[in-house]
């Protein structure tokens, strides 16, 4: 690199850092530094949301000669204010791993050999033709919104099948059912702005210092300005977030439910619950087997149910001192304080995940800590578009776009209208949720395994599904089963696939994501994908057209192709033919069709072009009399939400009781399905680390990240290691009733589990911890519990 160019780069780095520092301190937003001038004329810059987590940071992508050469935090973006985490800074490198998949590959005689796209599309269509009902699509919260919408339409309208489910079933399904059971509609009422107003941040089994670092920086930054922000970490092991917390409440796995009930008990006993808010805006609910909405209960019944959850009883169950339960109740009982609760996998990957979610919502409602900036129960998501593509587009087996469900006639009729299908064109029975789908794929047809083919896009289930020996491995020995995988790199799943399709990723294609705070974001294609890699959306439409051409489906009630597309002059565009896919903006057409669904549940979206101009907009986005579009930061609160009826301060306008009220739930603590015993004496928790994103497919190709965290390990308490004669770094075997794993021990490592507990990250595909986990799941969300199972440990050399 010549010295002049390096000087340019240093100046650019300086300008970006200075701008980000001033922005982060609350100063008025400066324009993005003039990167174009500083880097010279050869580099062009465009916005894009980061490819990784659900925070939705915006980056400026620098492209030179068709290659991404630089990444800068976008100072104009409200989410990250110019900052990025270590993964975000490296996001451009994720495109350039040496082993990108560049050609379709078909398994022939045990080896994957290159084939043409035409042949690949023909093979997929053959599988559909043989038995459309046994063909399933397994997608992702990394699908872009238009891709997920196309996938949903492909299955539910094109094949008249609901056998589609996403990997988000594994990460946030319990948050969805928690919101539905409480408010009658999904997704947080608050937003990230709450982090600037809250006096108290409660982390419920959550580690944002590693999983959502930029959000955590927003909290820590307030402290650097001298503000007082109390962080309370309620967890089963110490993490990097704990280091910043004033209080760490260490609980025994599963007993978070008892803690929440204990706080509610004290609010009632102390008379510090918000009687006015509750009497005007809330009702009470208790469990009823098999019913997500449970049953109405009286205030007296609610009080009686909580009576046993005294601080002392909760201490006995959870191990959290009674004084700390009283401390929490004291905070919730103080209306002058603003309290934001944050959670992610800890509460969601839980066999009582739905119940636990409702209990945290219930604490905020009961105490009135709701609907003011800083007062919010807010779930976080791990994928960039788990909200946008899964929860809003409805790519689950029971869902329809815009918050609809296949079991409701009104919702099916809307889908039939938008997609121009005959009445009855949408099936009213949900398909199989993720665990059931894979279980049936791994079960012989003669034994009820009625899923013969799964097409996986943008995810890596052979690493991330639980209990892999049961859900995945058997299918690979059954010649009737066929696995198709679209991905960008070789993964644990492509390696066992029958057909592999090379995909374009991130800024190699147009896209839209929806982050954790209801923010819909848009970007344009900026570089070409390598080799023959192509958009996942194109792959779906190309197969759809082949199905249509053969007369097997994919047509509306007038016989037209479901993805029929015309240009600005009304001339048809063959978007299934790759050279023509970008003749029009397919994303714009799909999104503007999808937004027709968004008004049904007041998740209103603006037209596509509004997102081109913005760094994301938070729905509902409502058109104003002057033609501008207003986003909503706080739902259900009259000061910000246009849909709250005039004269009301709050209104839960999708209330399950249809009276504008949210539900305060009682759900009892119940023990987990598996606990340590004499044979398997340790708890095992699995999770993520700062450097790697989920299964490591992308971050494993980025040398600094890989070198910083090269392989998985098992965290163990020093006392346990001493008792077992294990030294730091020694290889051990961790074994459950389902499988085992050999890996090194890290004593007093980054995280610190208490005695009797272990932690293993799941990013390393060479060390698959999901051979050990169990696949029990929440009865409503169907989300598996990756956070607790029973294992034993022994020295590998013993």
């Amino acid at each position, binding site marked *: 690199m010549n010295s002049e160019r390096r000087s340019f780069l*240093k100046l650019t780095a300086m300008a970006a*850092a*200075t701008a980000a520092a001033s922005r982060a301190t609350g100063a008025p937003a400066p324009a993005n530094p003039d990167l174009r001038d500083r880097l010279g004329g050869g580099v062009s810059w465009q916005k894009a949301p980061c490819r990784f987590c659900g925070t939705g940071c915006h980056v400026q992508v620098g492209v030179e000669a068709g*290659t991404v050469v630089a990444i800068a935090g976008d100072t104009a973006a409200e989410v990250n204010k110019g*900052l*990025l985490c270590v993964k975000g800074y490296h996001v451009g490198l994720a495109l350039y791993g040496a082993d990108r998949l560049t050609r379709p590959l078909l398994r022939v005689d045990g080896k994957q050999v290159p084939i043409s796209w035409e042949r690949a599309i023909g093979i997929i269509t053959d599988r559909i033709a043989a038995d459309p009902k046994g063909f399933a699509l397994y997608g992702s919260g990394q699908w872009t919104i238009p891709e997920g919408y196309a996938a949903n339409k492909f299955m539910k309208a094109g094949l008249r099948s609901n056998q589609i489910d996403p990997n988000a079933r594994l990460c946030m399904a319990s948050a969805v059912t928690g919101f539905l059971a409480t408010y009658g509609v999904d997704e947080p009422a608050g937003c990230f702005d709450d982090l600037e107003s809250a006096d108290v941040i409660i982390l419920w089994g959550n580690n944002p210092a590693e999983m959502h670092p930029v959000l955590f920086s927003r909290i820590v930054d307030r402290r650097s300005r001298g503000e007082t922000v109390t962080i309370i970490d309620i967890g089963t092991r110490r993490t990097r977030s704990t280091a910043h917390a004033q209080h760490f409440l260490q609980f025994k796995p599963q007993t978070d439910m008892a803690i929440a009930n204990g706080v509610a008990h004290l609010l009632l006993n102390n008379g510090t619950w918000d009687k006015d808010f509750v009497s005007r805006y809330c009702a009470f609910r208790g469990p009823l087997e098999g019913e997500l909405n449970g049953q109405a209960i009286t205030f007296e019944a609610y009080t009686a149910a909580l009576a046993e959850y005294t601080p002392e009883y909760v201490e006995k169950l959870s191990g959290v001192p009674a004084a700390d339960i009283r401390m929490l109740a004291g905070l919730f009982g103080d209306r002058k304080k603003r309290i934001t609760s944050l959670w992610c996998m800890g509460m969601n990957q839980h066999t009582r995940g739905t119940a636990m979610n409702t209990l945290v919502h219930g604490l905020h409602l009961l105490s009135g800590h709701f609907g003011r900036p800083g007062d919010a129960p807010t779930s976080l998501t791990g994928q960039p578009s788990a909200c946008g593509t899964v929860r809003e587009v409805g790519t689950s087996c029971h869902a329809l776009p815009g918050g609809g469900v296949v079991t409701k006639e009104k919702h099916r009729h809307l889908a039939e209208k938008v997609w121009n299908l005959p009445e009855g064109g949408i099936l009213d029975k949900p398909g199989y949720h993720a665990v059931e789908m894979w279980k049936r794929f791994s079960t012989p047809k003669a034994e009820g395994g009625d899923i013969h083919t799964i097409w996986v896009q943008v995810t890596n289930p052979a690493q991330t599904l639980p209990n892999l020996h049961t859900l995945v491995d058997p299918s690979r020995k059954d010649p009737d089963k066929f696995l198709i995988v679209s991905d960008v790199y070789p993964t644990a799943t492509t390696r066992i696939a029958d057909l592999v399709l090379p995909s374009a990723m991130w800024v190699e294609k147009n896209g839209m994501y929806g982050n954790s705070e209801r923010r819909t974001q848009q970007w344009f294609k900026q570089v070409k994908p390598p080799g023959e890699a192509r958009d996942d959306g194109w792959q779906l439409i190309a197969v759809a057209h082949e199905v249509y051409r053969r007369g097997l489906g994919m047509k509306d009630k007038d016989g037209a192709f479901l993805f029929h597309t015309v240009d600005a002059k009304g001339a048809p565009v063959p978007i299934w033919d790759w050279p023509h896919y970008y003749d029009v903006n397919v994303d714009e057409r799909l999104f503007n069709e999808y937004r027709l669904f968004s008004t049904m549940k007041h998740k209103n979206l603006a037209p596509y072009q509004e997102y081109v101009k913005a760094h994301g907009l938070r729905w509902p986005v409502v058109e104003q009399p002057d033609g501008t579009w207003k986003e909503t930061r706080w739902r259900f609160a009259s000061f910000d939400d246009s849909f709250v009826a005039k004269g009301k301060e709050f209104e839960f306008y999708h209330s399950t009781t249809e009276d504008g009220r949210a539900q305060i739930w009682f759900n009892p603590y119940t023990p987990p399905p598996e606990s340590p015993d004499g044979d398997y004496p340790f708890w095992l928790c699995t999770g993520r680390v700062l450097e790697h994103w989920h299964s*490591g497919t992308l971050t494993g190709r980025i040398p600094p990240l890989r070198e910083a965290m090269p392989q998985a390990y098992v965290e163990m308490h020093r006392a346990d290691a001493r008792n077992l004669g294990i030294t730091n770094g020694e290889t051990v075997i961790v074994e459950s009733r389902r499988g085992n794993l050999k890996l090194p021990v890290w004593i007093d490592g980054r995280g610190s589990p208490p005695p009797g507990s272990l932690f293993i990250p799941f990013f390393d595909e060479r060390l698959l911890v999901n051979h050990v986990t169990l696949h029990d799941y929440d009865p409503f969300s169907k989300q598996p519990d990756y956070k607790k199972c029973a294992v034993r440990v022994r020295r590998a050399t013993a």
Partner: protein
Amino acid sequence: MPVLGVVVTLAPEIGTCPGGLASFTDAIARTPGVAMVGEPDHGRLPLVLETEDREGDESVWAALVSLPGVLAVDLAFADFSDLSEPPSPLQGLSS
């Protein structure tokens, strides 16, 4: 040869403790590959990191994070225009 623009968040006591800031900036000045490019603004200090390779980038980063008084280090800019293709982390496992 990465060039990074970063923002360091300082603990409040760095600014209020007598000599705290001077001591901190001395420590920054002694960290190879790091250049101060501005004054702390409400506890946020912009820096430029310039290293010879990605390993250097990682070690400088680790050194910054470990400095007493550093609450967080965030990225604002990164260049990797001299990108050479990294090896696959999973060589030998691919079909």
